[in-house]
């Protein structure tokens, strides 16, 4: 069993067949330990989104091996039958926009995922409350998303990503719409949450404000990863 939260070995993704085949990912190798926050950078078209989609189990790689939370989920085919449950239980997602559900209040937005996973409502809400307190938005627990500031909404979306205590969080440009102060605040929260819940976090970013904050960065160019340690 892998001690890494995320381990990719020779991951490849090819779109199309024969002469029309395009290698979006060629030979991606990556190891991320529990509690680590790692940046993923690269120009447009380099394969970042494809890699994130493979890690998020929404597209199937073509070859290689992928381990999430110590469990092999891909090796010459999916090793897990229920990918929907895998995404719900093992992977948290944070997006550029918070995508909170407008007709649910803040607590229910966070509690929704554990409820979908079968956690009793009272326990799911208690877990949501604990996360909202940790992220300093507990005072907005009964508010609707439209009543929150951009920074507060993003903190709620971080709480939602953590709600099922996943070993892995994929953050797709989470600071892009925020100003410098709020972007640094979100990065501080991600580091704190990764350490507190031992969650490995991959942050895909173009945001130059936050790039210096990563201890480790994977650069992806032409479908291949190059680790740029700092």
């Amino acid at each position: 069993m892998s001690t890494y939260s995320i381990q990719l070995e020779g991951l490849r993704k090819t779109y199309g067949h024969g002469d029309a085949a395009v290698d979006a990912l060629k030979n991606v190798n990556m190891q991320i330990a529990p509690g680590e926050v790692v940046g993923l950078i690269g120009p447009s078209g380099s394969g970042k989104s494809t890699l994130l989609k493979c890690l998020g189990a929404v597209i199937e790689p073509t070859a290689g091996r992928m381990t999430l939370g110590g469990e092999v989920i891909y090796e010459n085919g999916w090793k897990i039958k229920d990918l929907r449950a895998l995404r719900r239980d093992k992977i948290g997602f944070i997006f550029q926009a918070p995508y909170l559900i407008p007709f649910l209040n803040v607590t229910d937005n966070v509690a929704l995922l554990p409820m979908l996973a079968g956690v009793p409502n009272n326990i799911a809400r208690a877990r949501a409350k604990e996360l909202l307190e940790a992220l300093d938005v507990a005072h907005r627990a009964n508010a609707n998303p439209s009543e929150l500031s951009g920074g507060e909404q993003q903190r709620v979306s971080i709480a939602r990503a953590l709600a099922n205590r996943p070993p892995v969080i994929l953050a797709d440009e989470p600071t892009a719409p925020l100003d410098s102060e709020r972007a640094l605040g979100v990065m501080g929260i991600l580091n704190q949450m990764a350490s507190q819940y031992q969650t490995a976090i991959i942050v895909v970013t173009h945001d130059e404000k936050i790039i210096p904050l990563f201890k480790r960065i994977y650069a992806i160019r032409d479908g291949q990863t190059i680790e740029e340690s700092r």
Partner: protein
Amino acid sequence: MLKLIGTQNSTIASMILQQALGLGLIGFIVGKTSATFWAPLFPKYVLLEPIDAVIGFILVMVICALASTLAIRTALLVDPAQAIGG
């Protein structure tokens, strides 16, 4: 986004159906209340029995449920990968 984070299709369908029925209920209440209070302002009356209101309510709910199937079908066809990247 709901599909990406692992929501069952049945849950998504149920959420859309609930919203459609909720909107139908609000529409019916507003319509029925308006009709009751404004009817005397019109020169000719149409006599509505209580059973007509019940039938009207059932029809509104059925129409909303049928209409929601279009939205449910569209939502269930969305690829969860669309929520990631560009």
